[in-house]
């Protein structure tokens, strides 16, 4: 056998050409097996979906799944096996991932076929059904059929196993002509060697890792409550009932969703725009003392609590005697009657945006000012020699230099648009509910607004919010890759 690169005769079983160092034989793919990941995610979702669901009205009646079999630990084992499989695929040990995937499949089949299903009839009381019993006789006078979960599992299993052998990314990625081993450190042969080599760093990282697992990942298991009717001590599985209700029969959900997007996106555009303008203006200042003073003043509101900010603006915008703004407008004969800025749907959004810009713009300018200070003065000097005035210099030097930072800040903040709570919560009231209620405040009011907290339903709303957030993060990551050449996650 000869080396394809230098035509040197190669020894038997050689993996690398001894002369030129080129890799010999079939090159191992460096891509993550996306198809396998998709399959595993489908299996993960299948763990939440009903095994058996109502035959007449899809997805809205009580359903039976992992969460109401009489050995609930099976669900945890199933999820654990899938997590192991996903991790293995992620560290490119995809073939090994087939083992936990198969274990998950076995757990699923055992749970589906051999376990009894609990039908909730009251606290600590339930009736047990077998699969055949449910499918042939139904329960509570309703007939049942095989649920969505089974279809997800079948497709998921096929994709998760077959996907380990099928690298779809290679059709989309440009093949690197350089051998991977020259791109990375020589010890990066495999993940375990790498971990061993850096073992003490990993030991140092261990406390953080445990903390993240305990406080960030373990609570995610709570997302299963989105599929349950929350009864204290006995939450029982209801399938996709909450999601169905949320999308079709909820008085406030879509309104809150719309408000979240409107308030967040407009706020983001205004805040970024205002921050850029202020940064450019500050950058033009030559008196350093004045510049620093202005900078400090515009930063300060950022450090104030939203509760304090809301109280201040409530006072300033009051319709009564203490309301400075209304008094000014009235005395200037601009208005006849005081405007109820925080209690009128016509004015609430505008007021909200103004308060947000006032509070957060100063802080946002830090990043832009840092970028501006990095622009080479030579460019300005050259432009000045060429006869460019201030406006031209701003247009052709400053703004292009700032553009990348603006886009980065915009993209990073876009991923957070669903997390709108505090600023709205402290400024909203019953009179402006139609324009102010966002998803987070809606969940809060729904959970803590009455004697009975429907944690199941509000978890479903929260899960949907997280899902939209995830799409935005991935979208922004993609956009970031396109714009900056590297992702944000």
């Amino acid at each position, binding site marked *: 056998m000869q080396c394809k690169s230098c035509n040197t005769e190669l020894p038997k079983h050689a993996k690398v050409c001894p002369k030129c160092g080129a890799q010999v034989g079939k090159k191992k793919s460096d891509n993550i097996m996306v198809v396998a990941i998709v399959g595993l995610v489908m299996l993960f979702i299948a763990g939440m979906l009903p095994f058996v669901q109502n035959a007449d009205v899809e997805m809205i009646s009580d359903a039976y799944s992992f969460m109401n079999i009489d050995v609930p630990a099976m669900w945890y084992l199933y999820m654990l096996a899938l997590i192991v499989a996903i991790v293995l695929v992620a560290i490119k040990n995809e073939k090994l991932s087939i083992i936990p995937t198969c274990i998950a499949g076995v757990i699923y089949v055992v749970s589906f076929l051999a376990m009894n299903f609990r039908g909730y009839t009251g606290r600590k009381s339930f009736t047990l059904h077998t699969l055949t019993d449910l499918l042939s006789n139904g329960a509570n006078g309703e007939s049942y059929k095989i649920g969505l979960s089974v279809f997800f599992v079948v497709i998921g299993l096929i994709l998760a196993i077959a996907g380990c052998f099928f690298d779809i990314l290679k059709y989309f990625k440009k093949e690197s002509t350089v051998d991977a081993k020259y791109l990375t450190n020589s010890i990066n042969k495999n993940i375990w060697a790498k971990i061993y080599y850096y073992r003490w760093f990993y030991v140092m990282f261990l406390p953080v890792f445990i903390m993240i697992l305990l406080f960030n990942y373990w609570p995610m298991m709570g997302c299963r409550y989105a599929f349950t009717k929350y009864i204290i001590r006995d939450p029982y599985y209801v399938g996709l009932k909450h999601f169905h209700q949320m999308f079709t029969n909820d008085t406030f959900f879509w309104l809150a969703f719309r408000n979240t997007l409107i308030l967040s996106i407009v706020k983001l555009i205004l805040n970024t725009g205002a921050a850029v303008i202020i940064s450019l203006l500050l950058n033009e200042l030559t008196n350093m003392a004045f510049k620093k003073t202005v900078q400090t003043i515009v930063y300060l509101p950022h450090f104030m609590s939203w509760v304090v900010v809301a109280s201040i603006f409530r006072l300033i915008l009051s319709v*009564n*005697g203490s309301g400075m703004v209304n008094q000014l407008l009235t005395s200037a004969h601009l208005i006849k009657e005081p405007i109820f800025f925080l*209690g009128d749907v016509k004015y609430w959004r505008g007021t909200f945006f103004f308060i947000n810009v006032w509070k957060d713009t100063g802080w946002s300018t830090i990043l832009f000012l840092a970028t501006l200070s990095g622009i080479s003065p030579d460019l300005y000097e050259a432009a000045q020699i060429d006869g460019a005035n201030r406006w031209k210099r701003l247009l052709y030097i400053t703004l292009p230099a700032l553009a990348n930072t603006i886009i980065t800040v915009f993209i990073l903040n876009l991923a957070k648009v669903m997390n709108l709570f505090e600023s709205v919560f402290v400024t909203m009231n*019953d009179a402006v509910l139609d324009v102010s209620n966002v998803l987070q405040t809606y969940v809060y009011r729904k959970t803590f607004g*009455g*004697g009975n907290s429907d944690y199941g339903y509000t978890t479903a709303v929260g899960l949907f919010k997280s899902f939209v957030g995830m799409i935005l993060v991935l979208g922004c990551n993609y956009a970031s890759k396109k714009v900056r050449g590297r992702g944000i996650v």
Partner: protein
Amino acid sequence: MKKTIKKLTAVGLTLTSVMGLVACGSSDNGSSSNDNTDKKEITKPDKFTVMVDNTVVTETNGAQNFYDYLKSLTGLDITWVRPDHSGYYDAVANAFNSDDTMPDVVLLSSDYYALYASNGFLWNMTDAWNNSETKNSGRLIDTADNVLSALMVNGEDGTQSMYGFSPYRGNGCNTYVKKSWLEKAGIDVNKVQNEQLDFNTYYGYLKTMAASAGHYVISAPGFVSTEAPYTNYLPEFFQKASYTFYKDSTGKYVDGFSEKAMEDALQRLATAVADGVIDKESVNNSTANARDKFYSTDASSESGVFTYWAGTWAYTLKTNLENKGLNGDLIALKPIKELGAYVERIAPAWCITTAAKNPEGIFKYFIDTMLDGGDIQTAWEYGAKGTHWDTKAETVTLAKDEEGKKTKTYEEGTFHMLPSPEKPNTLMQKNHIDPILALAKFKNGTDPGDATMSDTAKTNGAFFAQNSKVATPLPMTTELAENITDINEVRKQVVADVALGKSSVADAMKHYKDTVGSKCDIVLKSLNK
């Protein structure tokens, strides 16, 4: 060898994780202790846990001394669980998730009381109460039956029983009118103080006061409050309109909000806001904002009429006004004719959970002694002897106070309050039971701390007791629990829209029916089942 150890360690860790997970998901087979034990002898409980909010003296205000003092009086070994006050009901819900964390005794407000009772978490104490020493002592106040009958709620089986006991009345709001405002507006103070006005006369007075002040008279903490009975901050305007579901004279549950009485109430509210009698910003007010406006020294934002808690608050409002240099004379308005009586909220209840191993013993030795008419009742009303109050001869010194009021000397045997451990510049006022609201008198007929209570608070407490009726509890059904938040959200929106003139009563009511009418029907169907 090394490899073997590693393998064994890995297997061990995996098994530990799996066993841990299995344990997490294991089904709960803890047996309920709510067995029928009628015939067994009632023994003193060995040790039990009590979960309570900050209505009992807090950890920073000498709670440990209170626990020790109570133990010395009752001999009970109690483990106290004191979650953060603002997250109390979250902590309660979490604790109820497992028999291991479920307390034996818990204090619950009316909403949660009905919810937990209907879910079967609370021990039925009807028989225990009927045979209790407190009930048969003859020391209960006249209105005790009304208070306790409101604690009869549906249990898991749907039958009404008593699942909790409250040692004090729930209290409620009455309307305070500043005397100085009446005088300034030229209104007959005696008439307002002594006569029962009708709405038109009352509203006429409000308009006169508004004209005199040049702005609103009432600034309420919301047009409706966030908890039952909801209409208690503007009772003269809502009158007998019911904000939520109630049982009408035919014994059938109806939606009070969709009735004509509520439409009229909303119209009165809208007119009052339009006339400048009620502050528009009430919609945006917290209770603290509304109180601040009542105390305000800025004439342009001061309010003159305020509906707020009776009893101790009458004294607090008066004192705060005087501290700000304002006239502290307040008149508690008799309920107007159309209103008939103020509404007293259902008191929070002490409940024994189904986790308690000896509920009869806990009831007899813990709950039934709260109103023993002696030392234990004193402890629940005033706290620990030597920490919060005392009777020995001593000179009590406040850390900081106005000149000349720093110290006071008491003779031996005189009951007096001591400086609060948390705020040494003020005297302790009370512990869990407000002495003015206690459900039973002391054995000798006199509250030992009577002299420490202000006359203003006592007079107003008695006034409210005479002029109020206890709210009727709403039975909890699954449908009610599922829909009430959405329904109340729209109700609040309707009230705000009408009051601020953004919508007519008819349009707002149409919106209400269109939006949550079907949900109301579902709730009514479940209530009338």
